[in-house]
């Protein structure tokens, strides 16, 4: 019955809590569609068939997971430094603008060096954008969550201004776009003739950056310093860490990832910057990062899962006639349950009746929140 925490409890909780929360979210989503007169079982089946049912849906899923890994890193890296930066969407659209805009400014070499340059331009735009949020927080005390979201709206306005104004391609009639990237600058599929099909190099970029971020945080001195800053800023100052610089660097690194996501979307999928880039990938990235508990090693599988749900969305729409926002509802439920599950961390294996009673929503005086 009553026993203290065992060494394996933390590891088991790290897997059980998110899994349980996601299961609860799926259950709630089933109940939700059932109220609308749809069959929950059919919805769940289609959700998984559309995400992981066959080679084609796997391809679709991986295509969508690639930018999610990058936008999730944009939340995860600042989060490890103690900041809740959620402006990934803004950094992403500016990255797309930078990628599509570089050929306007200078002649670029064809092939890999040219592609690398447009991608770097996107990453640089994103990095500057989120570094702004970090800098405003460190030097002016402006809440970074609010400022990064406001920066996101400003970024989208800038994007629309340039795409529909100075940078508009006169040939894009119905849908204002920039001039398409030259053939030689685009990013192609990894292995077009294999099972991978259309899956482009963006997936590799996402995976590699998740690993790099994981190694940085886990195995390097500066990554360790960053985690100290995030864990206890006062201690960090006390031992003389360059707190401000570390925080801004984490934000810039995250912004670079989100900017890269936008650049990859342009260079591999849309070939030009237009409104299709503003698809909420930055917002889904927030959810992915929270589910992965801001751990870069856990981001790829979580991104794959939510990329899969997004891929299944169109199948749900076609087969059952569910509105296209149903995936958004599922994501919202998942976010709520993931946060609620945090309340159980460290006590999942200690749950007994008195604890259950304590967990009642209004914690009485002197309760756990004290």
């Amino acid at each position: 019955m009553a026993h203290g925490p065992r060494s394996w409890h933390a590891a088991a909780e790290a897997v059980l809590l998110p899994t349980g929360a996601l299961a609860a979210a799926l259950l709630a989503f089933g109940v939700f569609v059932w109220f609308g007169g749809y069959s929950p079982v059919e919805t769940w089946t289609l959700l998984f068939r559309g995400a992981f049912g066959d080679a084609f849906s796997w391809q679709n899923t991986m295509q969508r997971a690639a930018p999610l890994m990058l936008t999730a890193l944009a939340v995860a890296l600042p989060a490890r430094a103690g900041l809740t930066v959620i402006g990934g969407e803004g950094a992403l659209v500016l990255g797309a603008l930078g990628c599509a805009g570089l050929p306007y400014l200078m002649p670029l070499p064809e092939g890999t060096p040219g592609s690398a340059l447009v991608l770097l331009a996107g990453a640089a735009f994103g990095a500057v954008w989120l570094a702004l949020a970090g800098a405003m927080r460190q030097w002016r005390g402006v809440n970074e969550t609010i400022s990064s979201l406001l920066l996101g709206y400003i970024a989208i306005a800038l994007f629309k201004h340039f795409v529909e104004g100075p940078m508009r391609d006169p040939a894009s009639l119905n849908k204002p776009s920039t001039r398409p990237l030259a053939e030689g600058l685009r990013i192609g599929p990894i292995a077009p003739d294999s099972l991978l099909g259309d899956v482009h190099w963006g997936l590799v970029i996402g995976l590699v950056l998740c690993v790099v971020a994981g190694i940085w945080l886990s195995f390097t001195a500066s990554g360790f310093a960053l985690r100290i800053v995030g864990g206890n800023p006062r201690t960090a100052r006390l031992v003389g860490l360059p707190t401000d610089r570390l925080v801004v660097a984490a934000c810039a690194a995250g912004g670079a990832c989100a900017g890269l996501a936008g650049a990859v979307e342009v260079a591999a999928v849309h070939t030009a910057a237009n409104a299709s880039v503003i698809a909420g990938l930055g917002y889904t990235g927030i959810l992915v990062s929270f589910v992965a508990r801001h751990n870069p090693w856990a981001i790829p599988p979580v991104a794959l899962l939510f990329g899969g749900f997004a891929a299944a969305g169109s199948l749900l729409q076609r087969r059952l006639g569910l509105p296209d926002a149903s995936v958004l509802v599922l994501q919202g439920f998942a976010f709520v349950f993931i946060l609620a599950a945090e309340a159980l961390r460290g006590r999942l294996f200690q749950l007994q009746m008195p604890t259950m009673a304590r967990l009642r929503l209004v914690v009485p005086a002197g309760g756990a929140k004290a």
Partner: protein
Amino acid sequence: MSADAWFDLLLAIVGGAVRVGTPFLFVSLGECLTEKSGRINLGLEGVLVFSAMAGFGGAYLSGNVWLGVLLAGVSGAALASLHGLLCSLPRVSDIATGIALMLLGAGLAFYLGKPLIQPQAPQIPSLALGAWSASPQVQSALSINALFPIGVALALAMAWAFRNTRFGLIVRMAGDSSDAARALGYSVNAVRIAATTAGGFIAGLGGASLSLYYPGSWNEGLSSGQGLIAVALVIFARWSPQRCLGAALLFGGAGAIGPALQSVGVGGGYYLFNAMPYALTLAILLATCSPKRSIKGAPMELGVSR
């Protein structure tokens, strides 16, 4: 531009300040109440979208616009109470919950609001305060959303209640010192859940003003950050309901510049002018915040003012 054109522009901005500022007013009052109790609800952005949809649906289905307004308030309160309950769990951050609520509110609104995109619902009546004037521009600028005077009255009532009523003092105590509230035998979480829920109801009225007055229809791009701006606006207003009124009008005016310029024929930089309120918010945050001290008037328990 001639003097006449300038006058028209100014009039359009003044009229727009009330028209665009009404949702800001309600959301910032709701947020003000929530933050006074010691929690920040970033999810009011989601509450705004969801209640706009619910209000429009209620007015469309019942044919009575005030039923729609009521439904908007109730649905806003329901969504906000979810925030209040979640944040009462141990180790759940109010900022993260707010982000979740933003996504959930938008998702639910887009899902349930799908069939509401085409139809027309009855609208909130306008009060013709400009009837004395013969000029149609003055008349249109001074024809005011009937919710606006309610918002003004609410702002004044809240300012009075925070100073003079038992409930106002309890809310402020929970926001300034949870220890004191606990020592006097009040459940801090219960106070905060109640304040968050009531704040959600008020913010929901702002949603009704969006979908039932201006722009006056339901679509998925209805709210783009107004809820969030309102959160920043409360910081600017230093947690005082009267100052929320002034700030909401200022921001409404900033938001009206783009459409006003367009109405007198200046079309360039349309998107940039529309981004004015966001830039203004950032500028104001930069000017009012400081890393050295917490802002004057901030509830002590609030994380956002640090």
